[in-house]
């Protein structure tokens, strides 16, 4: 009985949670639905026309750009954050506390106001209209969160192992690579997911910095369906599904790590 109630509650909550997603699926398969009030979100006459119209070589190219940018952002962001977080966790040095506070502070300035000065800086560096410029900006903006996450997790890994390895003659670099990183896998997975999502979903900066349709990322392409006078709901919804699907897939793949990685350290720390 009690179990039944629990399941009933969970089922209802899950329905509420996925309802908007089903609504998007419905719109993608039957765009006319934007003009009909129905409770049941799935289409009566589904057709793949929206997907069909969406998919051309340019779209494929933009999809590839998005994957490339997100993957590189993740790789660079992680590399930079892991070393910084490890130093913050293990070494004591002047400026450590100030650094941690400064990282948190960077989360507080409204991002909408950063695009104009950033444009000027990228212009100086000759990195406008290039995916590498975008990767650099995304990787950097994801650093503060990543360092905080990873530092919290590193703090919970007992130091005894590292001390033992040090006695055995391992160099600090080896200790970091061979002992700390494998132990921190769940946290690294979560952090990677975060960097990936930052890059995958962003469109304001991408639309400002990129000048070449073949270099656009998917969200910029998607934004074109929301026009001045009308919104192309079918195309927008189909695009939205294509944009969301990989992130969901990664979520599902990582979900076990996700739960451990986000906080496992917090309680003991």
């Amino acid at each position, binding site marked *: 009985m009690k179990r039944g109630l629990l399941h009933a509650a969970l089922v209802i909550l899950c329905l509420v949670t996925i309802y908007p997603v089903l609504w998007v699926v419905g719109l993608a398969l039957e765009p006319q639905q934007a*003009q009909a009030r129905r409770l049941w979100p799935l289409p009566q006459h589904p057709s793949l026309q929206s997907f069909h119209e969406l998919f051309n070589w340019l779209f494929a190219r933009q999809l590839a750009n998005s994957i490339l940018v997100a993957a590189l952002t993740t790789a660079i962001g992680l590399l930079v954050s892991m070393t910084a977080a490890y130093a913050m966790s293990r070494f004591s040095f002047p400026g450590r506390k100030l650094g941690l506070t400064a990282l948190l502070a960077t989360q507080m300035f409204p991002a909408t106001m950063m695009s104009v000065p950033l444009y000027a800086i990228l212009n100086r560096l000759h990195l406008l209209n290039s995916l590498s410029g975008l990767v650099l900006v995304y990787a950097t903006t994801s650093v503060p969160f990543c*360092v905080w996450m990873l530092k919290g997790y590193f703090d919970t890994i007992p130091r005894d192992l590292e001390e033992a390895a040090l006695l055995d003659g391992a160099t600090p670099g080896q200790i970091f690579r061979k002992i700390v990183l494998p132990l921190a896998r769940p946290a690294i997975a979560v952090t990677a997911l975060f960097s990936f999502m930052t890059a995958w979903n962003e469109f304001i900066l991408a639309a400002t910095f990129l000048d070449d349709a073949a270099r656009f990322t998917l969200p910029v392409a998607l934004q074109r369906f929301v026009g001045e006078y009308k919104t192309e709901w079918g195309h927008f919804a189909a695009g939205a599904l294509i944009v969301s699907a990989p992130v969901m897939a990664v979520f599902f793949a990582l979900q076990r790590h996700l739960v451990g990685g986000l906080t496992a350290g917090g309680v003991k720390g």
Partner: protein
Amino acid sequence: MIAVLALAPVLLWHAYRGAEEQALAQLIERFDAQQVEYRVEALAIPYDAFASKLTSAIPGGHGPDLFIFAHERLGGWAREGYVAPSDYSGPFGDALTVDGRVYGYPLAVKSVALFYNRALIQEAPPTIDELARTARAATHDGVYGLAYPVTDFYYHQAILSGFGGAVFEEPGHRPALDTPEAVRALEFVRRLALDDGVIPEEPTSVLVTSLFNQGKAAMVINGPWFIGEIRGVDYGVAPLPPPMRPFLSVEAALVSGRAREPAGAQAFARYLLSPEAAAVRAHQGGQVVATDGAPADPLLAAFRRQAQSALPMDNSPQMQAVWEPEKRALASVMGGELGPEAALAQAQRRLIATTRAAPPTRNPAPYLIVLGAGALVVAALARRRLRGRSFRGTARAYAYVSPAFASLLLLVVVPFAAGMGLSFFHHSEGHYTFVGLQNFADILASRDYRITEPMSFYFTLAITLLWTVCNVALHVGIGLALALLLKDPLLRFKSIYRVLLIVPWAVPNYITALVWKGMFHRQFGAVSALLSALGIQPISWFTHFSTAFAANVVTNTWLGFPFMMVVALGALQSIPHDLYEAASVDGASRWKQFRHITLPLLKPALLPAVILGSVWTFNMFNIIYLVSGGEPGGSTDILVSEAYRWAFQRNEQFGFAAAYSTLIFIFLLGYSALTRRVAREAEAA
């Protein structure tokens, strides 16, 4: 082959889609084939990003050689030198004139006109009184006499001019939103919509389209883009009855003031105007060609006639600040909150406040001296603190953190400092003047509006706090509750539930925002469908503060609870099980166990998540901007969306917006310092 390589590229930016884009592509192909000097490269840019992209790219020398855009922003752009003067003279030249010089080449004209369903109405009404009479007569059995987005000032202009009203008073170009003519025009619409039910409630463009296609709207005010959406209706188009003068947008090909290939840009612009190209634009692109006085197509001909009597939109930067106050006034009248007179008086005051005059220029020297002294004090303090501290063995630590901090310095701290610096300046038409602390003083003294009005800093701050508290409480509450339900290791289908409940996190938040906005639509939204299935009358979500705010909170809660759920799940799993067993043995109740074991052990994990979550929510621009858009009357705007409006919707007051951002930053810094101190004291106690 060599000749091909030597072709100079002419970069063209446009925001066309569909048929217009295809027509343009065809013309580029023809142009490239006809001459051997230039090669045109087109780039389609999202309409929403166009203006901001252009204004950042052109000064940096990265802009296009030629761009196609409506003439509305020409005033500011011409004075800032973004556009080069042209030798055009002919129809609609005056719309392209700034300070006596002509800029660009007019391609197409766009204005609204009257669509009517021939099955319901024989002939387009010849006068505005006749229009009202026809609309009333046609309203019966679920058919609306007239439909158009009543809260959009772009459409309302037609009515306003029908009663002799105008936005600015000449000479002097002073705002005149609350004239008796404007009040009469708004009262006319209010009566049609609220008293007579001639205009449907919340007539968004989707609803208008749907009603017209179902034969449930006798007349519709709409533009040429509507033609492609009509299905299965026998209809006609006629100019709106005089003296109604809808806004006219003149889409022009504008040669950039910093073009690398100005001659090529001009050559292609002239080609677009040629009769050959005009024919392609009209037939393939469906454009109402500016330079063709009598199109063969009867629909385009009707729009061309309308363009003749329409009012070219004011191209001064002041016009950009008119939309927001007008929209707010229209929405509050249509929502039944205010009468036309009160609403327009408010709009007038708001417009005057937003087009604030430049504060007096200050001498920056004293500020620089204070800044320099401050830097010296900080340096001295840092030196004193570092003295006696050993740097031995720290080289490795610095090597590890330096890549992160170097990139942060360059790409976060520098733009951030530039943003802060901007808050001491006033921006007007491309020129910055140093005004010292005046921007801050104006914000904090709430000049021009009472503290209890939506535009005052304190009102917006209060809303922002309410918004943050509601959201974070719901995120933590729901997240924690779900985590407690899911933590049971024996629960079946656990991983399925977990996966489904995490889904919102994976959806990009601008998609979430647009989808929920659609679901809250009064006629078509799923929320309304659910309410009517339960026998409750659907409501207009965005006409009252409480419901609009609730809609924002619901959207953001949907988006944010999975993060807290995952954090809480992780934290719960790492609480040793024996603690609960020991407590059970001691006879502690479930609630007591939760109070004394679960909560205290969760706190260290939840606290950082709560701090970060509240900072993110405090600055959650996308949801506010896309879901309620500040409706009603700007009351649901939060500080970041206000800052955005000052920068991009109110005369480009970048300095004022930067001051808002700086205040947000200072506030959040204080908040996090406070929470961390409280947490530390609690731990110590």
